[in-house]
């Protein structure tokens, strides 16, 4: 453990009030079952209100299922990591979802097809709602292309 100090010095500086426990999922939809218990534990730790917990679950499920289906194109056994942090001096719980998939920016205008409002149930797109929901329910959203993957940062303000 003596190397921890030098390792930490090389890591990006993120001030957190807690160590970052990481959830690592494989790129299969059934892995999403592990998300809810993880969020429930966080809810207890941070006294997250029910509505915010709902939004966290929704955004993480949509972001991760999107990576599995579109980023990794349904291929199993690729990693997806979810970290959380509460940057010092803020009331925002920030989740970082990272993958090693080809570039995909869910915040790009082209990611959500601007289709006219459906006028019948037959026209309603059953796919493609995930990014719309992500944009609506996230407090803040940021995308970063990494050398070998993608990083999506999703923040939620917590009450003081």
């Amino acid at each position, binding site marked *: 453990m003596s190397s921890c100090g030098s390792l930490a010095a090389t890591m990006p500086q993120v001030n957190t009030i807690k160590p970052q426990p990481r959830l690592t999922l494989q790129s299969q*939809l*059934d892995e*999403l*079952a592990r998300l*809810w218990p993880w969020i429930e534990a966080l809810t207890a730790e941070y006294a997250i209100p029910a*509505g915010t917990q*709902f*939004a966290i*679950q*929704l955004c993480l*499920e*949509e972001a991760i*299922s999107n990576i599995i289906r579109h980023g990794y194109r349904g291929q199993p056994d690729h990693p997806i990591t979810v970290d959380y942090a509460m940057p010092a001096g803020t009331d925002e719980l920030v989740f970082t979802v990272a993958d090693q998939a080809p570039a995909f920016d869910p915040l790009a205008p082209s990611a959500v097809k601007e289709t006219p*409002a*459906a006028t*019948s*149930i*037959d026209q*309603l797109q*059953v*796919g493609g*709602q*995930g990014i*719309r*929901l992500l944009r*609506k*329910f996230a407090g803040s959203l940021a995308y970063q292309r990494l050398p070998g993957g993608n990083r999506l940062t999703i923040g939620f303000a917590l009450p003081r």
Partner: protein
Amino acid sequence: MQISTEELAGDVTKVALDGRMDIQGAAAVDLKMNIIAGSSKKLLIDLEKVSFLGSMGLRSIVLPARAVNSRGGKVVLYAPTEMVESVLKTAGIDSLLPIHHDLATAIAALQ
């Protein structure tokens, strides 16, 4: 995820969903929802006890509703919580499948 059905007056089938309509919950009710949608022409989907709804859960509502509509039937959504209703509205489903919070009004909308 629990699913139960009840036949109401006026040939209305009420299907009550109970639990989390996440990816697992959606998978758990899909088959039964499709069977119900295959035989009902007036379908009331009771969302009162749905504590979570994601896009996979939306699919489990929209596809059966589409099947009922395609046979000339009607579908209404009943009593979603505030957050679930917000998901439905963000997806634009409320304009196609009416949302009601009063049971009598919901049933009347199916006649």
